[in-house]
C-alpha cells in the first residue's frame, strides 16, 4: 500500500477552487517533486497531505503505518523567523515535541536525537550560534534537522531552496537526495526549479490550468507540458 494516495482531490479556499482532479500516489522510498506555476496550489496540496487543510472534493488516504507523527514538514520560512532570537540547538530540539507525550520538558532521548540530526546535517559546530546570524543555507539546514527530529519516514518540503544562492541551492538539493537514497527517507518536495526537479526526483507532479501531469521524471521530460516548461528559459525572440 502506498504511503499517501490522493484520489481526485480538488483544492481551494472559501469555495474558490484553485486546482482540480489531482490523483497521485507516493510509495515508500519515493522522491516526488511537485512543480507548477505560482498559485497553482502546490503549498496548499502539501498542507492538505498533512491534514492541515481539507480538500474541497476527493479523499487523501494516508497509510496508518505513516500516521501523523512520522511525517516531517518543512514549511516556507516566514520573514520574522529570520531574526528570531534562538540558538540552533533550541530550534532543532523543538522538532522533538512530536516524540514526547504529555511531559512538559525534553529528556535525554530527545536531546540525543537532536544531537544526532545536527551531526547528520553538518551543523553540529553551529549548535550554540544564534539562528539570525546564520546564512540562508545554514538556516535551511537547521530547519531540515528540526524536521528530521519530527519524522524518519516521510518528509514534506515546501520550497527548501527558496531564497538561497545557487551554491546553497545545489547543496540543499544534494542533501535531500542523499537523505532519500542513503537514509531511505521518502521525500515530497515542492519546487520552482523544474530542471533540478527532473534531475533529482523519481516522480513529478505538475499542477496547473488543465495540464495536470503525474508520472516519472523521465516521462515528464518527454511530455508536452514538461517540454514546454523545461524549455521556458529559451526565449524564442533571442534565438538566432
Amino acid at each position, binding site marked *: 500500500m502506498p504511503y499517501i494516495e490522493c484520489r481526485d482531490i480538488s483544492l481551494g479556499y472559501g469555495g474558490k477552487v484553485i486546482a482540480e482532479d489531482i490523483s497521485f500516489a507516493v510509495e515508500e522510498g519515493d522522491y516526488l517533486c511537485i512543480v507548477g506555476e505560482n498559485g497553482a496550489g502546490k503549498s496548499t496540496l502539501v*498542507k492538505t497531505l*498533512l491534514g*492541515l487543510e481539507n480538500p474541497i472534493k476527493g479523499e487523501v488516504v494516508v497509510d496508518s503505518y505513516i500516521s*501523523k*507523527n512520522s*511525517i*516531517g*514538514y*518543512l*514549511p516556507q520560512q*516566514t520573514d*520574522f*523567523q529570520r531574526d*528570531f*532570537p*534562538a*540558538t540552533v540547538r*533550541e*530550534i532543532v530540539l*523543538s*522538532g522533538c*515535541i*512530536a516524540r514526547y507525550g504529555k511531559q*512538559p*520538558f*525534553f529528556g535525554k532521548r530527545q536531546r540525543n536525537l537532536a544531537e544526532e540530526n545536527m551531526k547528520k546535517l553538518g551543523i553540529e559546530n553551529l549548535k550554540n550560534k*544564534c539562528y539570525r*546570524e546564520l546564512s540562508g543555507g545554514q538556516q535551511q539546514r537547521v530547519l531540515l534537522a*528540526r*524536521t528530521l527530529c*519530527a519524522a524518519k519516514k516521510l518528509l*514534506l518540503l515546501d520550497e527548501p531552496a527558496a531564497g538561497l544562492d545557487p551554491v546553497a541551492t545545489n547543496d540543499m538539493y544534494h542533501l535531500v537526495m542523499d537523505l532519500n537514497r542513503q537514509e531511505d527517507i521518502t521525500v515530497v518536495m515542492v519546487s520552482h526549479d523544474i530542471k533540478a526537479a527532473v534531475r533529482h526526483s523519481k516522480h513529478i507532479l505538475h499542477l496547473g490550468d488543465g495540464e495536470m501531469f503525474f508520472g516519472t521524471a523521465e516521462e515528464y521530460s518527454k511530455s508536452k507540458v514538461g517540454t514546454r516548461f523545461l524549455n521556458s528559459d529559451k526565449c524564442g525572440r533571442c534565438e538566432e
Partner: protein
Amino acid sequence: MSDLFSVIQYYFTFDFVRYAFLVGTLIALCSALFGVILVLKRFSFIGDGLSHTAFGALAVATVLRVSNPLYVVLPVTAVLAVLLLKAGQNRKIKGDASLAMVSVGALAVGYLLLNILPASTNVSGDVCGTLFGATSILTLSKADVLLCMALALTVTVLFVVLYNRIFSITFDENFARSMGIHTGAYNTIVAIVTAVIIVLAMNLVGSLLVSALVVFPALSAMRLFRSFRGVTLGSAVLGTLCAAIGILGSIILSVPVGPAVVAVNIIAFLLFFVLGKAFNR
C-alpha cells in the same frame, strides 16, 4: 545611603506598601514573560489596544457601580483579545485598523460615560488615575492582592509548563500544527492570558502605560541575549527588577508609580542597547 534604607524600611511597615510591592513585581514578571511571545509574534500593538478597551470597560463598570469592576473588565478584555488574535491571523480583515478603531472608541466612550454619569465628585482625578496608575496599587485590598497573586502565579506556572510548546508555536506555527500541536487552543490561551495580564497591569501602571510593561523587558533582553531561553529569563528578571526599582523609587521620591516603573524600563532598554552593541559586534 542608610537614610534611604531606613526610609524604605519605614514604608515597608505599612501593609499596603508591602502588598503593592508584591503585586507589582509579580505582575511585572508575568507581563515580561508573555511580552516575549507578543513581541516575537509581532503583536505588541495588541497590548496597547486591549488596555484602552479595558479603560472603556472599567468606565462602564464604574458608572454601573459594580462592586468589583474586575468582574466586568476581565471578561470583556479577554473576549476582545481572542477576537483580535484571530483577526490578526486572517489577512482579509485589517487587524491593526480595526484595533485602532475599537481602542480609541473605547477611550472616548468611557470618558464620556464617566462625565455624563459621574460616580464620584472627582472625575478627572479618577480618570487620570486609571490612565496613568496614580494611586490604585497603593489602595489594593487584601482580597485584591490575593486574586492578583493567584492569577500571576497561575500565569507564570502556565508559561513554564508550556515553555517548549510555546517556543515551537512562536517560532513556526505551521510546523507546530504538523506535529499535532493544537495551535488554535494555544493561541486562545495566549490571548486570554494577555488580557488577564493587561487588566492586572492596569492596576500598577495605568491603562496608557500598560504596553510598556509588556514590551520593554522583552525588547531589552533581545538586545543582549541570543537564545530563546536567555531572552525569556532575561526579560523575566529585568521586568521584575525594573518594577521593584520603579515602585521603591516612586515611594522615595513620591512620584506616581506607573511613570516611575516605565522610566526605569526605558533606562534599562538604553543600557541593554549599548551593551548589545558592545558585545554582539
